[in-house]
């Protein structure tokens, strides 16, 4: 199997995750308009990548595992993206001009 990461690595990842949790909490108090959600999701995504790559040790896994780990998020984006393809464009067509 693969090489085993040191305890130090795990603790460093944990510390980063905890700091990021604090950061995301603090940043959320600042009003940045539409960017609040972007920042929050960006930090969450980064945290997720840390967990996947190090705690779940996907970094050292086979390309197959990486593919399957990635596929879930790809399909999630398909789901959300195509939902919003409808919801985001519903108001674009002015009423009454359709026919």
């Amino acid at each position, binding site marked *: 199997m693969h090489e085993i990461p040191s305890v130090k690595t795990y603790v460093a990842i944990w510390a980063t995750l905890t700091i990021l949790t604090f950061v995301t909490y603090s940043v959320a108090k600042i009003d940045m308009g539409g960017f609040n959600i972007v920042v929050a999701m960006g930090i969450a995504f980064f945290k997720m990548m840390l967990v996947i790559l190090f705690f779940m040790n996907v970094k050292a896994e086979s390309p197959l*595992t990486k593919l399957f780990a990635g596929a879930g998020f790809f*399909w999630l984006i398909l789901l959300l993206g195509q939902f919003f393809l409808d919801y985001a464009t519903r108001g674009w067509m002015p009423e009454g001009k359709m026919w």
Partner: protein
Amino acid sequence: MADSHGVVAEHAEHNPNLRHHFDTMAQQFDSATLGMWVFLLTEIMFFGGMFGAYTVYRSMYPEAFASTSKHMDAFWGGLNTAVLIVSSLTMALAVRAARLGQQKNLQILLVLTMIFGLAFLGVKAIEYHAHWVEHMVPYWNWDPNYDGQPQYAHNAQILFCFYFFMTGFHALHMIVGVSLMLVILMMARRGAFNAEYFTPVEISGLYWHFVDIVWIFLFPLLYLIGLHQHTT
């Protein structure tokens, strides 16, 4: 001639943990791990469906949504995030210990993981209780006046419903996770694992981390968006 007896004999000298239809321990380990990843794929889509529906309603009713975040206590949410991250650390270290064949460490780390998992559930229970007291539980205990903002009551109810659905579903996963830890712990105490065979620890670990990741997204989505409108 070479019938099922031959098959049995062929495996007799192998690791007793090797199931008959696998050729090698590595194949069995890889299959179990891949199986867990495929299972997590379905879990992503499971939560994804909820996230999708929730996001649609949030974008439809932004004001009603902002009004709900007032009732989410970001302190408890943040604390729970921290607790869960610690439990992920102990879980990762438990898998490491299993790999290295450190049986004692493995058991201690599993117990710690369970404790943090239960702590998470405890905090969640405190929060649910607070929602109940504030009449924020749709159907069972819902204030139709919605805190003096009856214009949002209908839509806020939908969002609260998703809040309970998603966090409840996540809590259910936590309960399953803690139970898994208990099973693994008993197996470990029985001496079921060694440096060659620790598949159940590995795949339970993957599951635990996944549940952590779901919360990493739930926390900002449910607790943090709209926080700035209430603090200033």
